[in-house]
């Protein structure tokens, strides 16, 4: 039973649930299950008419070609971008690196001087970053002499607009931050930060991995300069993600990865690059994965992202309610009642996260334990690892209830006195 109507969703659309109707899958923040339409979009494509997408005139070919060509349009439309503003990447990590490496090349004089960083320029991130939105900026800083600053998190793992305001200065050239934290579920005040960036003339990069799958997101309305997300967290395949960039920026950002299909004229000495998005798409692209990505976006769009968000708001409330009434369990992130994504990370008093995870797994509840690629955040929380439950469109209140039940038994099993 779902919390609010997600009318067109059937759990059995997902082969995973068709095979395991009783599964409690609460690890969608790591990677999501895929509907049959996504799996078969790929299989159909690589089967009988695979080669044909490149050339040919059969009806089947026309359809495959159309499927590939329109996948970009559909994913772009889904996040409020023009077609030229949506670059296929290997994943969100790859997308963020593409920005950082491109700015690095610009700083070495291999491209637009506007994007170049100099020694003493500042980059600002948060202490809540996923490593994917932290290490690439550390490396960029090391290459250019720029300084990496960060907004600290509080005891609940939260960062604030005020904190950001304190770190941003006229030296700030770039602000990168998570739209939704993959650990705390905190939702960033994007418009305020875009405003702050505008005041000082800084670029903005949005790590949208945990927002695009779960709520309506329109990058052009949000006004960010760049954004990154991955298909495998939004019902799509692994091996593909996307970089969003405002067209005029993408046209001048140097391409970090070079090779075939991204050029106009190549001599032994020099290469000229195509305009965006193709200038970033060197080599054979993840063709079938793009088609799968398109199918995933179609599935989400058919549910309606506003409905998805209100469904997941219900799940989030239930998660918070369940966790806060379980003795010996500490919920991190936004306080009960405050806005959050359907992510709940907890610390069980006296039981290591790994042991909690193993116990829940034995009870048929799949969650994630560890630092969730956010070591600095966990260091700030004072624990090496947390236990994270995270939802998606197919998550229902029964899942939450069974998670809560198992969580309630953990401390007893490990003999921790309440």
């Amino acid at each position: 039973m779902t919390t609010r109507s997600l009318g067109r969703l059937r759990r059995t659309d997902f082969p995973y649930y068709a095979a395991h109707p009783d599964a409690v899958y609460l690890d969608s923040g790591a990677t999501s299950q895929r509907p049959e339409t996504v799996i078969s979009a790929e299989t159909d494509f690589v089967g009988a008419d695979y080669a044909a997408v490149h050339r040919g005139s059969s009806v089947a070919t026309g359809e495959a070609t159309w499927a590939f060509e329109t996948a970009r349009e559909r994913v772009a439309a889904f996040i409020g971008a023009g077609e030229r503003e949506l670059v296929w990447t290997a994943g969100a990590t790859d997308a963020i690196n593409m920005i950082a490496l491109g700015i690095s090349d610009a700083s070495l004089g291999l491209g637009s001087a506007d994007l170049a960083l100099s020694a003493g320029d500042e980059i600002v991130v948060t202490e809540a970053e996923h490593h994917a939105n932290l290490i690439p900026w550390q490396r960029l800083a090391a290459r250019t002499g720029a300084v990496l600053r960060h907004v600290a998190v509080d005891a609940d793992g939260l960062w604030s607009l005020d904190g950001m305001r304190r770190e941003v200065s006229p030296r700030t050239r770039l602000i990168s931050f998570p739209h939704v934290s993959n650990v705390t579920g905190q939702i960033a005040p994007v418009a305020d930060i875009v405003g702050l960036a505008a005041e000082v003339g800084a670029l903005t990069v949005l790590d949208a991995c945990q927002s695009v799958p779960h709520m309506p997101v329109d990058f052009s309305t949000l006004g960010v300069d760049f954004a990154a997300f991955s298909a495998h967290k939004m019902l799509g395949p692994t091996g593909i993600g996307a970089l969003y960039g405002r067209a005029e920026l993408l046209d001048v950002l140097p391409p970090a990865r070079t090779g075939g299909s991204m050029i106009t004229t190549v001599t032994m000495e020099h290469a000229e690059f195509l305009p965006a998005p193709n200038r970033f798409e060197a080599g054979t692209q993840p063709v079938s994965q793009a088609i799968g990505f398109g199918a995933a976006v179609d599935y989400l769009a058919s549910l309606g992202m506003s409905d998805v968000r209100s469904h997941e708001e219900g799940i989030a409330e239930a998660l918070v309610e369940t966790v806060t009434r379980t003795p010996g369990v500490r919920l991190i992130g936004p306080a009960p009642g405050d806005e959050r994504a359907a992510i709940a990370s907890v610390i069980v008093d006296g039981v290591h996260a790994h042991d909690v995870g193993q116990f829940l797994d034995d009870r048929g509840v799949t969650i994630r334990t560890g630092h969730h690629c956010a070591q600095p955040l966990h260091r700030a929380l004072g624990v090496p690892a947390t236990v994270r439950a995270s939802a998606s469109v197919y998550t229902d209140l029964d899942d939450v209830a069974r998670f809560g039940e198992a969580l309630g038994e953990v401390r007893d099993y490990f003999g921790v006195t309440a």
Partner: protein
Amino acid sequence: MSGLDDLYRELILDHSRDPQGKGDPQAEAHSHHELNPSCGDEITMGATVDEDGAIASLHWEGQGCSISMASASVMSDLLAGASRDEALARIDEFREMLRSRGSVEPSERLEDAAAFQGVAKYVMRIKCAMLGWVALEACLMESAAT
């Protein structure tokens, strides 16, 4: 015995609650730090090998899940006082048992460490169980080289 109870045997839970061999590893002749990057568990193991090649003293500190803590604890009981060669042989046996996916029965020589047999079926936990053993192995290698 359910799968879970086979993993978390009473002996393991007991050791995890009251770990043996804890102490300052830096006070030993050789020490080595091991980290499991996927979960952040870490152990620093220290050992002093006497002139006859026996482990005269062994102490460790660390934090982590019950499997990693209990395993380091059981190992301390088992190998303190053992000769270097004996210890290395036991470490190999322990590793072989864990990696066997259940096909290798623990040798009698592993004594209480045989209780970790159930870990073999949980691929993700093998690294936890090995953490202290790998750290001691590094100490013994170093002591042999000097």
